[in-house]
């Protein structure tokens, strides 16, 4: 039995540009079989019994809701900002809890170990103090003032820089990060991961970017992002337990894990427990 709060959220189910005519994309959402296809120019998402789901198209992707949408899809104002390049990076399947995929995206401490010499490097493993809050107005988790030394922060970066990050959990299985733009120091590069929960232990992840970068070819931008995400994938598939534990008694706060703790607390408070386990590991 899936909680109503889970059913009433938006989830990504396809890249909008890739949706074709029936049978289209045959996939799953929260354990239910669904089809995403083009019908008379409209993108339709339907259950196996033929009933249609609520759909919206944003940020290059098709979003669907199995229940009654509790609210509009979260805003990313930068998506409409002139001069930005929007890059759909395609899908990668990962055998892990959708919540763990998001939590890993929020974790800055893993950069030197998993993205060695690209997003982090030893001995620069220190994560300084930063701020984490659950914003009541937008009902989102934010981490701000995160600073980190990076050998190659982006495809367009030519050397090591201290990058500033902001992290944002905008939906139970969607997170957005803002990072120093190597080409335009007064602006943020925006990178999202949109996670489609197929089951509690299987997800498909759609990275998406909104960058100021006119120079780098599209294929290079996509492959840089895929390289980064595939470095995470093998870690994610080996995490034990597979479900994300939401038992607060087991959480030991350390500086690097503050965002993860806030994310878990926020999920628990909202009853968004699909992909989580409520008992101690």
């Amino acid at each position, binding site marked *: 039995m899936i909680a109503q709060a889970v059913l009433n959220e938006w989830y990504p189910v396809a890249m909008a540009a890739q949706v074709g005519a029936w049978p289209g994309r045959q996939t799953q959402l929260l354990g239910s079989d669904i089809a995403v296809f083009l019908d008379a120019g409209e993108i339709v998402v339907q259950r196996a019994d033929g009933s249609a789901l609520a759909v919206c198209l944003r940020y290059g992707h098709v979003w669907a809701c199995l229940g009654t949408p509790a609210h509009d899809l979260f805003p990313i104002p930068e998506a409409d900002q002139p001069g930005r390049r929007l890059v759909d990076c395609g899908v990668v399947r990962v055998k892990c809890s959708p919540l763990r995929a998001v939590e890993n995206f929020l974790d800055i401490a893993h950069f030197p170990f998993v993205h*060695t010499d690209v997003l982090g490097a030893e001995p620069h493993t220190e994560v300084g103090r930063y701020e984490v809050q659950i914003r009541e107005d937008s009902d989102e988790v934010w981490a701000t003032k995160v600073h980190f030394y990076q050998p190659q922060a982006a495809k367009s970066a030519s050397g090591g820089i201290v990058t500033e990050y902001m992290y944002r959990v905008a939906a139970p299985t969607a997170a957005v990060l803002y990072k120093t733009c190597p080409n335009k120091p007064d602006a943020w590069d925006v990178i999202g991961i949109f996670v489609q929960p197929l089951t509690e232990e299987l997800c498909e992840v759609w990275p998406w970017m909104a960058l100021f970068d006119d120079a780098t070819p599209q294929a290079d931008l996509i492959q840089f992002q895929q390289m980064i995400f595939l470095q995470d994938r093998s870690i994610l598939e080996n995490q034990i337990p597979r479900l994300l534990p939401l038992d607060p008694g087991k959480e030991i706060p350390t500086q690097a894990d503050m965002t993860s703790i806030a994310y878990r607390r926020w999920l628990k408070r909202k009853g968004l427990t699909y992909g989580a386990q409520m008992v101690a590991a």
Partner: protein
Amino acid sequence: MKLYDYVLSASCYKIRLMAALLGVKLDLVAVDFHPGREHRALAFRNLNPAGTLPVLVDGDLMLTESTAMLVYLAQASGRAWLGDSTPARAAKVQNWLAFSARLGASLGMARLHDMLIYPGDIDAFRRAGVECLRELEAHMTEARFAGRIFLEGDAPTIADIACFPNVALAPDGGVTLDDYPAIRLWSRALRALPGFIEMPGIHRLHELKPAPEAVPALEDL
């Protein structure tokens, strides 16, 4: 020398790795294999009608088979890597190049299925992959008993480079390497070679430091 490349492709990695080990510089041209399927588009098929990656271009020469590219790189820049010191060894190297195609069709396809949602019979891919791994493990065990660590002879050859990527990436397709100690030792020997480069899913050797996976999870502290 120009390599039309996809960062997650095991075959493309064979060529990047061989070139790195030989100290040969490649100009990489990223092809949007996924999600763009640029390798199937007309512009790319004008270059390679088969619509496959990698493609290696050196002047007038254009190669579309990774094993041929390995031969070319070794002939030009490191003949010892051909492994042709005796007729028997040269023939066995050819045998492994053919074996590498079986690895691609089994472990390679399992990986594409599990990672990039390619269609196909995943159980059949994995079964065929495990058969390959058992053959390889038996061979590497014999080699170890004879005091050798590489596939043929005392030094690494193009045979090792052709077979290594799809074997090392087997866990990406849901096939564990836990049962194959001789293969894991062979993998370590290759990763220790001077000039070795990584790809996502294939890590460099860390000097006796715990791998990040070995760090206890938050909830276990």
